[in-house]
């Protein structure tokens, strides 16, 4: 057990846990932020994607001891009013079916759009293929990413 001070969505949290505990479970069970989802535990499905200093990481495979001072942002902190261009586009395109993977999808897309504001279909395919959607909403996700990249105009 060890004490860690974390900054999640600009709020400070103090947890006393095993240094090996993956960030996912600190976020979910100790910070109580359940928008970040558990899917596989081995960084294969992307449901647990969060931002560490702005980069997308699979939080199920990042031990809490490796976080240090890095700023953590989860789906709850992506935007203040749920109005990030991707969130607006997701609503416009009506992407979700079950919805379970969608927070991870949005967090993955939000991170790469910063570097690639106008991605091609193929770039979206490559950058988003780490996130599984079991309901098969891939084409709508792609459409929503394009929509957000175009400033919300379809």
């Amino acid at each position, binding site marked *: *057990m060890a004490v860690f001070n974390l900054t999640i969505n600009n709020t400070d949290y103090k947890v006393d*846990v*095993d240094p*090996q*505990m*993956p960030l*996912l*479970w600190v976020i*979910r*069970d100790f910070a*109580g*932020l*359940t*928008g*970040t*989802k*558990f*899917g*596989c*535990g*081995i960084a*294969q*499905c*992307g449901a647990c994607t969060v931002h560490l200093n702005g980069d997308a990481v*699979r939080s199920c495979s990042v031990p809490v001891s490796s976080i240090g001072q890095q700023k953590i942002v989860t*789906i*709850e902190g*992506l935007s203040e009013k*749920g109005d990030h261009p991707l*969130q607006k586009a*997701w*609503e416009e395109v*009506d*992407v*979700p*079916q*079950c*919805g*379970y*993977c*969608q*927070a991870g999808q*949005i967090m993955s897309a939000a991170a790469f759009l910063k570097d690639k504001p106008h991605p091609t279909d193929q770039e*979206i*395919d*490559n950058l988003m*293929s*780490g*996130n*599984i*959607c*079991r*309901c*098969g*909403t*891939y*084409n*709508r*996700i*792609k459409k929503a990413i394009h929509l957000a990249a175009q400033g919300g105009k379809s």
Partner: protein
Amino acid sequence: MSTSTINRRHFLKIGITAGGGLILGMEYLASCSPSGSNAPAAMQTLNAFIKIGTDGLVTIMAPNPEIGQGVKTSLPMIVAEELDVDWKNVIIEQAALDTDKYTRQVAGGSGSVRSSWDPFRQAGATGRQMLVNAAADKWKVDPNTCTTEAGMVHHKDSGKKISYGDLVEKAATMPVPKDVKLKDPKSFKIIGTRIGNYDTKAIITGKQKYGIDTKREGMLYATIIRPPAFGQTLESFNQDAARKYQGIKDVVSFDNKIAVLGRSTWEVMQAARSIKPVWKDDGTLESTADYKANFNKTLEQLPKESKRKDGNIKKGLAAGTKTFEATFECPFIPHNPMEPMNFFADVKADSVELYGPIQLPDKARNTIAEKFKIPKEKIKVGMTRMGGGFGRRLMTDFVEEAVAVSQLAKAPVNVIWKREDDMGGGFYRPMALYKYKAATDSNGKLIAWHHHSVGVTGNTAREDNFPAGAVPNLQVDTHEYKSPVTTGPWRAPIHNYIAFAEESFLDEIAHGVGKDPVAFRLELLEQAKAQPVGKMDYDPDRYAGVIKKVAQMANWGQPKPGVFQGISAHFSFQTYVAQVAEVSNVNGQWKINKIYCAVDCGTIINRSGAENQVEGAMIDGLGHAMFGELTLTKGKPDQTNYDRYRLIRMREAPPVEIAFIENNEKPTGLGEPALPPVAAAIGNAIFAATGHRLRSQPFMNSEAVFSVQKQQSEV
């Protein structure tokens, strides 16, 4: 369709809510109910529930579990349409299990919209009529001279208007109308439009709660160690190390399983790893190769009784100028919903609370009542939004476990499955083997069709499926193979595989007699219409309708150079679906360029949701046909996570084009029917391109055809 008057079999319960406003519930007498009196106590079932506030906000209960099929949005749309309210003033609430109020709180069989269409329309229309009557009474005018629009009652002659919110208190005192008029579909303003999933905002901001997110005061998280192989039992285990692990509160054992309980999910999972149970078995555990060998052996003989017999199969096959034979292998596949199995249970001395993702809440309650000897009325069941299910959550094993753990540990618990537990935990789509024989006459007409199959399930056939009805000599024979591997319904059960076998085999016959595969199917449907043989549960015209439509969409028979097409059609859950897949060779690899899909599901409720279901089912069907296979080594699943079990990813999902046949028929199922045809559409396109028949899934094993990577090395 003209405006119809419904002879009501239901009546209304009215009351004023604490905060003012009308509660309008519609009770619906089952037609077989012997207690056809008007006494409320005699009414057993309630199909809808409307609350209208004095502020004009309308709350509509969503009784059915939401699993991603969109019923939390689409069912209330039906009520709102007939009630004639503005959708932006509608609030939807998920109902808990309540068999006194609601019928069929089920997510399965693509049945929610089908079974709710009439009663939900009536509920909305009755509510509307009560509000109209209240306004007419207030204005001293004939109710028939009043109209409604977007939550307002209007009186044209006097120019008067009043909002539902201002009428509800009076409406609640009005007699309940006996007969109500339903809207003419031409005047629908909500049904048939595109309305966003009601929970989207919550989903995309991380606020939506799923079962796995359930946390209560004093609740413990639990993980369960189950036998790693089907057919094994628990001999012994040592829990000392686990108990010393941080955050661990308890270790309990039941039913050949061990549960570890504690303050956090990861801690219980870590502690469980320190337990090294000793498992035992009787030495008869089977591997995938054993199933294959035993299936083949089983099919050497016919069963004693056939599922279906038309004409004389022996004579039919013997009379053929051409005969055909093909074998199709169907692997076990797990459901793999993104949200792993989980359930909350709080077993107290005098009550039980169950809460979580469940497709059959009533079955869960009945099972718990029986197994744990708890009176049904003491068990409360709440349903959370589900992170998928695909049939897995029709089971109740995960609920039974949660109850057992809560009872033993004397604490509220949320039992959470690791992905490995979920994928290795059974209730798979059954492994099966299908052998088909067919014969055609000198005109290339199909005169005999024999289906012979075996699988780890009760019935591997859908014996009244097309081409049954169109073939004079047809026989369906199935065998059940007993296995300790648990199987269960998987999205479009049996249909999901049989459509591949049948539509591939039909294609093979069409090519074999030199007929165009679209024309060959249409000929058979003509035959079924003109001279139907035996029981037929499909309408040949509507079946042909989707085939013609998709052929037109895809410009069938005239693809672009280098593009090859395959057709497939299937009828399931009362819905007709036809698809054309197009493949082309890109750098030596066969690539699926696009899939066209025509659907006849009657009236569309939510166009956005309907397209999403169809597209998702197609991608789902494609992904599992390409990659889905769970193998066993001595009863133990070889794939238990996404590193070894491949699910379709974005880069493998082709564009799709969907068209609905526009009609005013009653709505039919849509969560499943677009899945079954897709595999054969692809297989048939691959045949058109290469001359190679795909007869086994997953297609990725057919390396000659798809040089896809065996393993993904993603991220």
